[in-house]
């Protein structure tokens, strides 16, 4: 298992060795100076603990033909420096790529100041912004390479600690496409990010034991959103359960609800952070468990959906 940060940094260094335009903008994240900074000193800058300035500086670099990757925590990227991201990066459609660590509850015991449960909602609402939520180290490495080739800005949502791989070896990251990790016909579990995808896979196992065939989709691109896979799931399975390490407002659950409401209505349950701040101290796993972002909760939601399923005979034709 590789920590998200290490997977990202290794991928970035590899790309930078091939492409002179790639820069690394640091905000005192630790470790980048000795890594990227030592390898590519002319393309590394530590702007200090000043995230708003860093975003605009990166915009200036991008306007000069550079491809900057900016490094900060998700909280600071999406809200503290949010206006700089909106105006200087997104509005100008400049290729600045935001690598945001400590997303979701991965900040764990550091508390709500360092947790980020609204970043997808913010970034998804910005025109021109690509939003990527990789689910394992292999996907991170591929996502970084895709980001570097984008004409506009992107947001890479990273956790903090290593998690098991969820994709088979050799699986490809395709921007804008959900990966079908398990086939199924009764219900679809839609997840994004490492823990939620693991929860969906665990739920799949539990459901199999109950004789339920659950499809599992890993939606690693929140924007552009894979409308087709969601519509297919709506038509081909009896309902959808979303699971995310993010507020139930504005993230994956909302994106799926928007697609269903406009294109293919289906029953939906959203598993995610309830509309509240995290009031507990603990490991990310403890917090996920506390707020019900677990395989068990996903399986229960799926079974509820199926139990509530209107009888085919009662639906007027």
């Amino acid at each position, binding site marked *: 298992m590789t920590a998200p940060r290490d997977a990202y940094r290794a991928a970035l260094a590899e790309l930078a060795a091939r492409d002179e335009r790639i820069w690394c903008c640091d905000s005192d994240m630790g470790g980048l100076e000795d890594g990227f900074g030592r390898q590519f000193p*002319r*393309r590394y*800058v530590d*702007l*200090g603990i*000043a995230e*708003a*300035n860093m*975003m*605009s*500086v*990166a*915009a*200036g*670099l*991008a*306007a*000069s*033909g*550079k491809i900057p990757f900016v490094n900060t925590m998700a909280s600071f990227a999406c809200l503290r420096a949010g*206006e*700089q991201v909106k*105006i*200087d990066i997104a*509005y*100008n459609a400049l290729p600045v790529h935001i690598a945001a660590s400590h997303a979701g509850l991965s900040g764990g015991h550091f508390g709500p100041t360092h947790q980020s449960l609204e970043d997808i909602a913010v970034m998804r609402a910005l025109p021109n912004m690509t939003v990527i939520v990789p689910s394992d180290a292999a996907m991170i490495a591929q996502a970084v390479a895709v980001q570097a080739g984008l004409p506009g800005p992107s947001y890479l949502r990273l956790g903090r600690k290593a998690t098991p791989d969820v994709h088979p070896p050799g699986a490809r990251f395709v921007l804008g496409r959900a990966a079908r990790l398990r086939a199924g016909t009764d219900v679809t579990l839609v997840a994004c990010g490492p823990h939620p995808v693991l929860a969906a896979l665990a739920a799949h196992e539990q459901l199999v034991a109950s004789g339920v065939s659950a499809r599992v989709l890993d939606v690693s691109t929140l924007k552009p959103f894979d409308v087709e896979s969601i519509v297919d799931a709506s038509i081909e399975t009896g309902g959808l359960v979303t699971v995310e390490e993010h507020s139930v407002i504005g993230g994956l659950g909302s994106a799926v609800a928007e697609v269903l409401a406009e294109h293919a209505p289906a029953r939906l349950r959203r598993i995610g952070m309830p509309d509240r701040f995290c009031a507990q101290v603990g490991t990310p796993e403890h917090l996920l468990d506390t707020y019900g972002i677990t395989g068990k909760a996903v399986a229960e939601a799926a079974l509820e959906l199926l139990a509530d399923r209107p009888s085919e005979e009662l639906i007027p034709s």
Partner: protein
Amino acid sequence: MTTALASRVRRHIVEMAAGPEGAHVGGALSAADILTVLYFDVMRVRPEQPDWPDRDYFLLSKGHAAVGLYAVLAERGFFPVGELGGYAQAGSRLGGHPTRAVPGVELPTGSLGHGLSLGVGLALAAQRDGRDNRTFVLLGDGELQEGSVWEAAGSAAFLGLDTLTAIVDRNGLQISGSTARRTGLDLLATRWAGFGWDVSEVDGHDPSALADVLAERPADGKPRVVLADTVKGKGIPFLENRKKGHYVTFTPQARQRALAALG
């Protein structure tokens, strides 16, 4: 030459503010001489090729002074002077804050406190590429209340960006009154110097003094700030140094009086 030009620029500002939406007249007039000197006497630009790689960069961090910038860009030949007549009207490229749709506008501004950071990015790219393009950023003195300005100031100093020049249009007024206490005007030179900048002070309505100080490049690896003392509403006596001159929609009569005052 520049004085006559600045006078024409001021007349354009009045005409735009006599349109249906009005304009941020006071801060455009206080900056008119600075903008004119920059574009006619100091900056390396090619109006027929706004993206000329050897150009000097300009950012209007006090983006609400857009009408002042538009007037100067038009006079300098970036787009036809006649286009100024459409200011703020449907279909025009000229809105209340500058966007990249306007030839000569490097990056859009309007939300205060962004321009100096953008300038740090442009200057840093030039520094690392070994290019000698200069970067000029015009800030308002009220704008210095935005904390991000000081994040930018700190980073420019420790990066040694000596091709970066900030100009503070120190007209002493913001919407609700004096900037003196809110910005700490009496400490301004000390504050910039404390952040590691080379500080100059100049009469912001003296074209030759402005040209001299802006043409100079500091030799000691420091970014440079020029504190330009200006008068808000400069050139129109009934607006000068008055709060009400911040945003003005001229009636036909007031337009006549303003133009007469400009001579």
